[in-house]
């Protein structure tokens, strides 16, 4: 089955889901779509640039808290304004953080991003008057495309207009990211991932390109974070905790970072598998962890890697 057909079927099923699927499952799609946006960005850094960030929950948190501040403090309810503000603030925070982090690679980069993530987590946890501390902040229902949908029950709002709004953001984010990774900039990132020393001999300023990838990935994570707010209606520090960073790295590995859509698939499987395991066993973390570990061991290239052809292997064997 061709990739385009699979993609068309997946998109069609996603569009039809609110009409045919139980509301509960439709609502589960909301965090999936928010994480998918964040993972598209994370994979620009991970899969395409070769840098593994363990602190991207920082930017999820920046996006989510931006929405919470705007809706509950500044009374700004427009989702478009929230998304733009989240993206801008994500970039603003990522610029200095990235400038420091991209000087390092491998585990040092990962640990440094983790450290910045924990600084932000501690900030939102401890500055109670500003952020609400461990109780978090309310993320009031935003208007979509200028239309206030206050009269609609929350479930109907989320499974209807907000669902399609999130889907539209995901599709737009996917198209933009597709353009980025297939541009000369994306090619340069791949050369940096393959061999940064040799990439320099082509005139590629490695640090500058890594920084750009970092900022773009942060913008995506912030937009994803902003999308996570309305379904729960509240933003708290757990969203910025290091386990969130671990989860999104794991989603990327689960789906396969070598594939463009791998992380999106990883987010889908992670969220639905987690929900299913939670519903059938009390000690779900144990079972969930074991299942995920088994998948990663059986499919080192991620779930997408099971399906994507490997021309180099085929060519060498032929």
């Amino acid at each position, binding site marked *: 089955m061709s990739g385009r057909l699979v993609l068309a079927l997946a998109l069609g099923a996603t569009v039809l889901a609110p009409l045919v699927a139980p509301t509960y499952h439709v609502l589960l799609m909301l965090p999936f779509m928010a994480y998918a946006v964040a993972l598209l960005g994370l994979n620009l850094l991970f899969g395409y640039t070769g840098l593994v960030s363990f602190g991207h929950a920082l930017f999820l948190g920046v996006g989510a808290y931006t929405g919470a501040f705007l809706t509950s403090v500044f009374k700004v309810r427009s989702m478009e304004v929230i998304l733009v503000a989240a993206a801008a603030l994500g970039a603003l925070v990522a610029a200095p953080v990235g400038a420091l982090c991209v000087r390092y690679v491998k585990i040092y980069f990962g640990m440094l991003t983790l450290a910045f993530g924990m600084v932000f987590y501690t900030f939102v946890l401890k500055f109670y008057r500003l952020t609400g501390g461990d109780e978090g902040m309310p993320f009031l229902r935003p208007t979509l495309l200028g239309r206030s949908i206050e009269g609609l029950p929350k479930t109907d709002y989320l499974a209807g207009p907000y669902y399609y709004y999130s889907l539209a953001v995901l599709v737009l984010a996917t198209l933009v990211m597709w353009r980025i990774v297939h541009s000369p900039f994306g090619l340069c990132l791949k050369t940096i991932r*393959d061999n940064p020393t040799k990439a*320099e*001999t*082509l005139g590629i300023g490695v640090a500058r390109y890594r920084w750009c990838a970092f900022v773009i990935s942060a913008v995506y994570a912030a937009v994803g974070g902003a999308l996570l707010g309305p379904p729960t209606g509240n933003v708290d520090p757990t969203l910025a905790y290091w386990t969130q960073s671990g989860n999104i790295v794991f989603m990327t590995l689960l789906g396969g970072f070598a594939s463009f859509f791998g992380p999106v698939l990883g987010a889908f499987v992670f969220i639905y598998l987690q929900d299913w395991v939670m519903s059938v066993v009390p000690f779900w973390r144990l079972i969930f962890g074991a299942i995920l570990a088994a998948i990663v061991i059986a499919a080192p290239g991620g779930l997408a890697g099971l399906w994507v052809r490997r021309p180099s292997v085929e060519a060498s064997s032929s």
Partner: protein
Amino acid sequence: MLTVDAVDVFIQASHILRSVSLGVGPREVVCLVGRNGAGKTTTLRTIMGYLRPRAGGVEFRGHPIHGRRTHEIARLGVGWAPEDCGIFGDLTVAENIEIATRTRPGGRPATERIELAFRVFPMLRRYAGRKGPELSGGERKMLSIARALALDPELLVLDEPFEGLAPAIIPAVSEGLAAITELGRSILIAESNIHHVPEYTHRLYVIERGAIVFAGAQEDAWRDPGLARIIGSAT
């Protein structure tokens, strides 16, 4: 074009290059010959900014480049084809060549530069859609040089372009280099095998234990018994 002036390079505590000087003029082909471990690659890596000289300097088109980063030197117009080729395995042949036209914009149009690279090494055109791991050693060498050429450089720095190649593929690479010289580019080649030094070489440098021991015409080097022993044993 390129002047390396009395360069001393240390790697940790080891004194690798000792007052190395050499020059490459416009449209010149210059060869640096020496045995394995003599300091050829270290000299080229110093030119490319990977190593910083403790003394002396490197100038390109009259401007010092020894303090500059590698990517800045490449953008000034120095193309580099390393000994291990440095092919990006996840990119196709066409992408490997195309990327060099994006990172140093200006000058000739990208399409012209890509076409020139394929014209110099016609064999690569057939493999345009193949990825790095699907190429033979000779094809990788050609791609490495073609990619450096697509950067539209004034000077090409080639580290052992014939190293490890099957005898059948050497003429194809050699013809490609000859075609590049006809384009008027300057070329600096490091080579450990004297028999691979192209006949159109304008000047030969012999390096031994980190020091230049000869600079002159290829035939003059053979007349010196001491040098003939060094470059003869380099085969």
